[in-house]
C-alpha cells in the first residue's frame, strides 16, 4: 500500500514513518507533507491508497484538504493528539483514527482494517458523509454511519429507537422496525449518542427517549417503548433515567 502522511509537525511525521517501517512493512510511504497545499499536490501526484491525516494543523484542518480533493480514491486514517471536535465527526462517520503518541498495536490494527476496506472496496461515501456533517453550521439532527459487512448504513439519530449490547456487538433497532447488527461495543455508541439525548438505561441498553412511551414500575423499573418493547432499567441508572425522561 502506498501511503501519504500529512502532519504539521515534523517529529510526528518521523515517528509515524519509523513505526510504519517497523510494524507495517506492507505500507510504503510515498510522500510526506506538512501543510494542506503541499499535501494537495502530493496526493494528486502520487494517488496513494492510504492517507494518514492529522486533523488539527495550525489554522487549517485535515478536513480542508479532503474538501479540496475532488477524487478521494484512498482510505484515510486520521491521526490526532486529543479527542477534540473533529474526532467526534470521524466517529459518527465510522472512520478510523489513531491517537498520538501512536500505539504500535493500534497502528497495526488500523492498517490492516484499511487494507481490508481497500480490498473490499466498501469505502466510497464515508468521507463525503463526514465532510457534509462538518459543513453543517446550523445544529441539525446528525446522521451516524453504521458499518456492516458489505455496506455502510447512514442513519439519522432520530430514527434510532434503541441499541442493545451483545457482548462486543451492538444491535440497532430503527423506527422502521429494522434491526441492524454492528461489530462495535455499545459503549462506543453510548459515548456518541449520549450527547444526542440518548440514555443508558441498562448495561446492555441504550435508549432514545423520544421513543419511550412510559415508565413501568414492574420489576423495579422498565421503560415501555412506543413499539411495545420493554427495556429494563438497572438500579444505578434509575435516577439518571428519570432525570432524562423528566425533561
Amino acid at each position, binding site marked *: 500500500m502506498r501511503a501519504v502522511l500529512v502532519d504539521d509537525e515534523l517529529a510526528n511525521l518521523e515517528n509515524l514513518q519509523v513505526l510504519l517501517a517497523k510494524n507495517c512493512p506492507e505500507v510504503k510511504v510515498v510522500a510526506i507533507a506538512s501543510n494542506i497545499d503541499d499535501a494537495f499536490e502530493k496526493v494528486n501526484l502520487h494517488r496513494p491508497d492510504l492517507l494518514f491525516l492529522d486533523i488539527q494543523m495550525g489554522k487549517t484542518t485535515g478536513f480542508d484538504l479532503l474538501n479540496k480533493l475532488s477524487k478521494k480514491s484512498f482510505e484515510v486514517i486520521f491521526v490526532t493528539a*486529543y479527542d477534540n471536535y473533529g474526532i467526534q465527526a470521524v466517529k459518527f462517520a465510522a472512520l478510523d483514527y489513531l491517537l498520538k*503518541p501512536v500505539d504500535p*498495536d493500534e497502528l497495526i490494527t488500523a492498517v490492516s482494517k484499511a487494507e481490508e476496506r481497500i480490498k473490499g472496496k466498501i469505502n466510497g461515501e464515508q468521507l463525503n458523509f463526514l465532510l457534509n456533517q462538518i459543513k453543517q453550521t446550523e445544529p441539525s439532527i446528525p446522521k451516524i454511519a453504521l458499518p456492516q459487512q458489505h455496506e455502510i448504513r447512514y442513519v439519522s439519530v432520530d430514527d434510532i429507537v434503541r441499541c442493545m*449490547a451483545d*457482548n462486543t456487538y451492538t444491535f440497532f433497532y430503527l423506527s422502521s422496525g429494522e434491526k441492524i447488527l454492528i461489530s462495535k*461495543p455499545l459503549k462506543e455508541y453510548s*459515548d456518541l449518542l449520549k450527547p444526542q439525548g440518548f440514555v443508558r438505561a441498562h448495561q*446492555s441498553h441504550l435508549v432514545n427517549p423520544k421513543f419511550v412511551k412510559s415508565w413501568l414500575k414492574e420489576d423495579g423499573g422498565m421503560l415501555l417503548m412506543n413499539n411495545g418493547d420493554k427495556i429494563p432499567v438497572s*438500579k444505578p441508572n434509575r435516577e439518571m433515567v428519570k432525570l432524562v425522561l423528566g425533561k
Partner: protein
Amino acid sequence: MKKIIFIFLNLVIAISTVTAQKGIDFNKIYPSGGKLLMCVDSSAKNVYYSNVFPNQPNTSFSYLPEVNNISFQINFRKNINIEHYRYTILVDDKSIVVNKSINKAQLKDTHAGGDDEVFRSTTLGIFPIKGKIITILVYSIQTPLDIYKSVFYGKSIPKAKIKAIGKRSTIEKGVDYSYIIDPKEKIKLNLTKKDDELTIVKDRTDIDYIYYTSIKDKQTNKIISESTSWQYGSHIDETHQFSPYLKFDKSIFKKSGDYEVIIQPSAFGRYKMLPNEMEKYTARYTLSITLDEVRFTNRQMLIFGIITALLLGAIFGAAVTYIKRKASKKLAQQSKQKEIAQLQLNSVRSQLNPHFLFNALAGIQNLMNKNEIDNANRYLSKFARLTRNVLDSKELISLTKEKTLLDDYLQMEQLRFGFQYNLSASSDLDTENIEIPSMLLQPFVENAVKHGIAEKGKDGKITVSFEKQTSNLILSIQDNGKGFDTTQTYNGLGLALSKNRISLLNTIYKNTPFVLDIQSNTNGTAVTITLTEWL
C-alpha cells in the same frame, strides 16, 4: 264643596254636581264623551279616588272617608244622543233609581269642568254618604253591556284578611293542595321539591279589585313579587260566594327565611294617601319559608360560581405552585448536590494524577536510559492512554477498558519493580458493557504497587479481580506486601482521596452504595470495593 271629575273613557255623558262651581279644576281632554262631577261637602279633608284597575274596566272608585253628603251632576257633550242613556243609583245594595232616563227638561248648558267646552248638564241628586256605598251605573241602550260604574265609598275600607294560604304539590296522579285556614299573622310554610305553587285566599269584599298584594323579602327588604290578579272560582266562603285568590310560583322564593305578605288598596298612593293613613288599610302577614333546596338567582349563582372558581383556582394554583416550588427546590438541591459531588470528584481525580503520571514518566525515562526503544514506545502509548483517561471527563468506563488501563499501568510498574500480577474478570460478567466510575481502582492498585510489593521485587504479587456476587459487583485488589495500618492517614497514598471519592460517589448513587473494605496485615493487603446492586 269640592268638585271632582271622574273620567269615563269613551263615555259621552257627564254627571255633575248641582252646586259648587268652585273646587278642583281638572282640565283633562277626553277622547269623547263627558264627565260625571261629584260635589262633596267642604268639610271633607281627604278624597281618594282612582279609576284604573287591572281587569276592571269602566270602573272608578272614590274613597270618601270624611264626607257627609255628596251631590252628583252628569254632563253630556252637545253631539250626544242623551235620550239613549240610562242610569241606576244604588245605596249600599239597595237601588234608589233603576235604569232611569235623563230628564231633558232639566238639562242646562254648563262649563262642566271649568274648561271652555259647553256641556248639557243635569243633577242626579244629593245623597248622604257617611257609612254608605253609593254606586252609579250609566249606560247607553245602544251599548247596554258597556256599563260605567262609579263607586263612592263612604265607609272605611276594610283591611284585607287572608282566609287561607296553601301550596300545591305534585303527586303521582297530578297535583294536591294543602292549606292553612285562617292563618295568624305569622305563617310557617315548608316548601319541598314537590311543591310548585303558593295560593293566597283573601276574604271576599265588593271591592276586591282595589287590593294588590306584594311579597317582600324581609332580609333584603325587596319586593320579590306583586299581583293584582284576583281570581274567583275554587274557593267558596261561608256565604257560598267565591273568595278571591292569588297564585305565586314557588320559584320566587330563592332561599329560606322570613317574607312579608302585604295586601293593601292600590293606586291611592298616586293620590298621596299618607303612609300612616295607608297603613290603616294594609294587612301584613309574615311568611316563614323553609326551602328544602336552596335556590339562587342567576346573579347569585354567577357570583357564587365565580367565587368558587376563583377560590378553587387560587387553591389549585397555590398547591401547584407549592408543589412545583418544593419539587424544583428539591430538584435544584439534588442537582446542586450532584453538581458539587461531580466537581469534587473531578478535583479528586485531578489530584490523583501526579501520583502515577510522574511515576510512569520515570518508568519511561528508565527504558530510554536502558535504550529499550521498542518497550519505551509501547509504554509511552500506554502512558498516553492512561493520561487520556485521566484527562477525559468521562464519568463511567467499561470493565474491559478499566482492565486494559490497569493492565497498562501494571505493565509500566512491573517494568520498574519486576513484580507479578494477575488481572481477572469472572466469565459471568459482561465486561464490555458493565460500566463503573473511571479511576476507581487505579489508586488502590497504585497503593499496592508502591507500598505493598515494591520492595519484594519478583516475589511481589498483585491480584486484581472483578467478580459477580448476586447483583453486586465486587472489585478486589490483593497484594502480598508488608501491609499498613488502615487507621492511619497516609497523605501520600491517595487512599484518603479515594475514600473521599467513594463517599462522593455515594451521594450520587444513593440507591447502589459503594462499600470500601480494606484488610491489611503483615502478610498483605486486601481491598474490596462492593458496588451494591450494581448489576
